[in-house]
């Protein structure tokens, strides 16, 4: 690997361009990271507002606010926005900011492509959101887009499909960039196994993305041709099968959920050692566990389809392979615990969110294991028990991971300490309300409440009311996050380079805020 230094012909003395053009034309990994993060935060509120429509309607039985079709549009858009618009961009934002700094690189390897990866997103989002204002409204088939139902979508169908294509292009380009950066831009001495875990989890995530986003793209393309050009991929009459789409979707969809959680694992693996003041336990086995999870994620997809009438052997295979994922995930949970063991713990906001992650993600993992048991899944499937499962892994899992990361690195990004008291208040409100929202959903699910319904039988009323209260509480608590972030950007106590006394890694060797260009001369890695 040759020397890694920056060469910037036009403004060797590095201020960024001024005004809005700075953000539109930037090729700087920090600027682009910021764009991603701001976009994600905005989408959290858009997608969240939709979930609040859902929860408002479900507050009590009977239809009070929206008609069923609009309800289904909200469910669909909520999920698409949260998954593709919020959580994935958030983690790409972290990758942009932190990966070059963590491996001692001057920037991402392909900066212009990086700019494009981001600037596809707002257009793709507009394409998707615009459908809500069309004749017949947005897609209402659930985020899983199963045919034949999805083909009943009105004018929204092509818009939604092309939007998925664009989002896919963005993800693939972003992933290529991350892989190239990690493979080709490491400072001398930064061997693969010396890389921090966040870098590792993102490397593996990027491989997953490149492998499965094209699959989704192909799947929705077939939807498009079935819908508009008379093909029969998903129609039995012509020799196709609606279930084929489900296989394609979940071949993408299952790795997708690990795409969502692996970067969060990475962040947690940075935060816990810092605030335990002790190195991460079993760094290498964490890497192998991550790789195993990624590998297994390709052979478990049909656990979302136990009720479609698969042959028995298929059900057995997918049940058993799914159960295996508990093993590497367990290794991770145990290693995090062992990291804290005999450490010296303190409880700043990032650590609090990481701890909540540890407990609540594990609960979500347990319910995941339960739904993996095929015969029992005949009862759980498409009930609120599943909704409870995946929100535990997505909200106090992935989202808390992102929030932990935000608090952890905010001082490095802005040069200021955030308001610790408000951070803690934000934590406690979030932690309490998130459980209030999603724990009762286990109960209604087991008792037989199907998901994706705008109205329900009266015996489910009490828990749904509690869940709705929790959702509004949780949602409005997030305004506090916005406040803390803005306050921190604008000023506050100066942050030192080290920021956290237990923090280790290259990103803590540069001043806070990190200079516009870091590591023009490669750092020394021991």
């Amino acid at each position, binding site marked *: 690997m040759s020397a890694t230094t920056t060469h910037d012909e036009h403004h060797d003395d590095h201020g960024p361009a001024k005004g809005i053009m700075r953000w539109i034309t930037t090729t700087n990994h920090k600027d682009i990271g910021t764009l991603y993060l701001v976009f994600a935060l905005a989408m959290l509120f858009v997608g969240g507002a939709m979930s609040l429509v859902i929860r408002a309607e479900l507050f009590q039985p*009977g239809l009070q606010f929206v008609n069923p079709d609009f309800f289904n549009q909200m469910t669909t858009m909520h999920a698409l926005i949260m998954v593709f618009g919020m959580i994935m961009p958030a983690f790409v934002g972290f990758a942009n900011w932190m990966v070059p700094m963590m491996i001692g690189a001057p920037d991402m390897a392909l900066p212009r492509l990086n700019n494009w990866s981001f600037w596809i997103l707002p257009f793709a989002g507009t394409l998707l959101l615009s459908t809500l204002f069309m004749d017949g409204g947005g897609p209402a088939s659930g985020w899983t887009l199963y045919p034949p139902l999805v083909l009943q979508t009105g004018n929204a169908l092509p818009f939604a499909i092309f939007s998925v294509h664009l989002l896919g292009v963005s993800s693939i380009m972003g992933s290529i960039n991350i892989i190239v950066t990690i493979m080709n831009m490491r400072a001398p001495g930064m061997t693969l196994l010396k890389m921090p875990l966040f870098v590792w989890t993102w490397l593996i995530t990027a491989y997953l993305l490149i492998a499965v986003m094209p699959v989704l793209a192909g799947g929705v393309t077939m939807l498009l041709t079935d819908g508009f050009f008379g093909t029969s991929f998903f129609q039995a009459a012509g020799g196709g*099968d609606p*279930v084929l789409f489900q296989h394609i979707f979940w071949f993408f969809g299952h790795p997708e959920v690990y795409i969502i959680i692996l970067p969060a694992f990475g962040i947690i693996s940075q935060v816990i050692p810092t605030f335990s003041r002790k190195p991460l336990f079993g760094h290498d086995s964490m890497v192998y566990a991550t790789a195993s999870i990624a590998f297994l994620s390709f052979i478990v997809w049909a656990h979302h389809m136990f009720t479609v009438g698969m042959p028995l052997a298929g059900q057995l295979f997918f049940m058993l392979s799914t159960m295996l994922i508990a093993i590497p995930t367990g290794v991770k949970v145990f290693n995090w615990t*062992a990291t804290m063991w*005999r450490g010296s713990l303190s409880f700043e906001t990032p650590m609090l969110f990481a701890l909540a992650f540890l407990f609540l993600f594990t609960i979500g993992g347990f319910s995941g294991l339960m739904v993996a048991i095929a015969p029992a899944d005949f009862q759980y499937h498409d009930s609120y028990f599943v909704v409870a499962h995946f929100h535990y892994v997505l909200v106090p899992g992935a989202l808390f991971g992102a929030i932990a990361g935000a608090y952890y690195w905010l001082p490095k990004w802005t040069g200021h300490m955030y308001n610790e008291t408000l951070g803690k208040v934000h934590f406690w409100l979030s932690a309490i309300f998130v459980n209030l929202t999603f724990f009762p959903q286990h109960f209604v699910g087991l008792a037989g409440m*199907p998901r994706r319904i705008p109205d329900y*039988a009266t015996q489910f009323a009490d828990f749904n009311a509690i869940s709705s209260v929790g959702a509004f509480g949780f949602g409005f608590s997030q305004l506090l996050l916005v406040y803390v972030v803005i306050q921190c950007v604008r000023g506050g106590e100066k942050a030192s380079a080290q920021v956290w006394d237990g923090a280790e890694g290259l990103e803590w060797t540069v001043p806070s805020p990190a200079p516009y260009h870091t590591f023009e001369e490669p750092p020394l890695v021991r």
Partner: protein
Amino acid sequence: MSTNLRKHDFNTFLTALVASLLGNPAQAAWEVNMPVGVTDASAKIFDLHMLIFWVCVVIAVIVFSAMIYCLVAFRKSKGAVPATFSHSTTAEIVWTVIPVLILVAMAVPAAQTLVEIDDTRDTEMTIKITGYQWKWQYEYVGEDVSFYSNLAASSNETRQLRSGIDPFQEDNYLLDVDRPLVVPADTKIRYLITSNDVIHAWWVPDFAVKKDAIPGFINEGWFRVNEPGVYRGQCAELCGKDHGFMPVVVEVLPREEFTAWLAGQQGGAAVASAATAR
């Protein structure tokens, strides 16, 4: 606009919480757990569910205790000094192998149950179920009896947007139909399920039966109900705007009563009422 979170809600909540903690679901005002159900399969699945549940609880108690112990014992504010170890091969082998053993122990009964449920041999009668947007059609194969089953009219009225009718005043809000499926008790019944438009799923929690209705394909399954009674469920696959409004109701009659009922239906009388689709 309808009123009401009912006033006694909070009391109900407490009673139920206490009841469920004491492990007596019968006293609970609402269920917090999967129904045991009324078929052999549902009982087996319930046991399986409880087994995995308790396994998870035990693991959770152990793992969470360890975590909580860390949080309490190794606080910087209490002067904890960090150790420096960063791996232990023994420990890592232990916590890889133990979960493997646990999983194997779980997989065996799970696989057994799966195989049993799959066995559709020796069925005594066959019913064909067809999903429509948004109703079910039931055909008694070989009996010339067939009819549609729609959401009950009163529920349908109440569920309209801002109907102003209080759902709590209905007996089985959203879980009642105009014509239930009627089947005999103690009979191994095969059902064939398909759809006429989009995918639906036929779900009766008390039977532990959930199978997708795929247009163009026929899935099959079976159930044998031990106790006569009325059992309710819902469509469990998003099928469009009225997905929430196509319940499943099954009336299980003792065998003789069923034979009499079936005789009364024969000759197409039943088919006519089907036309009253919404």
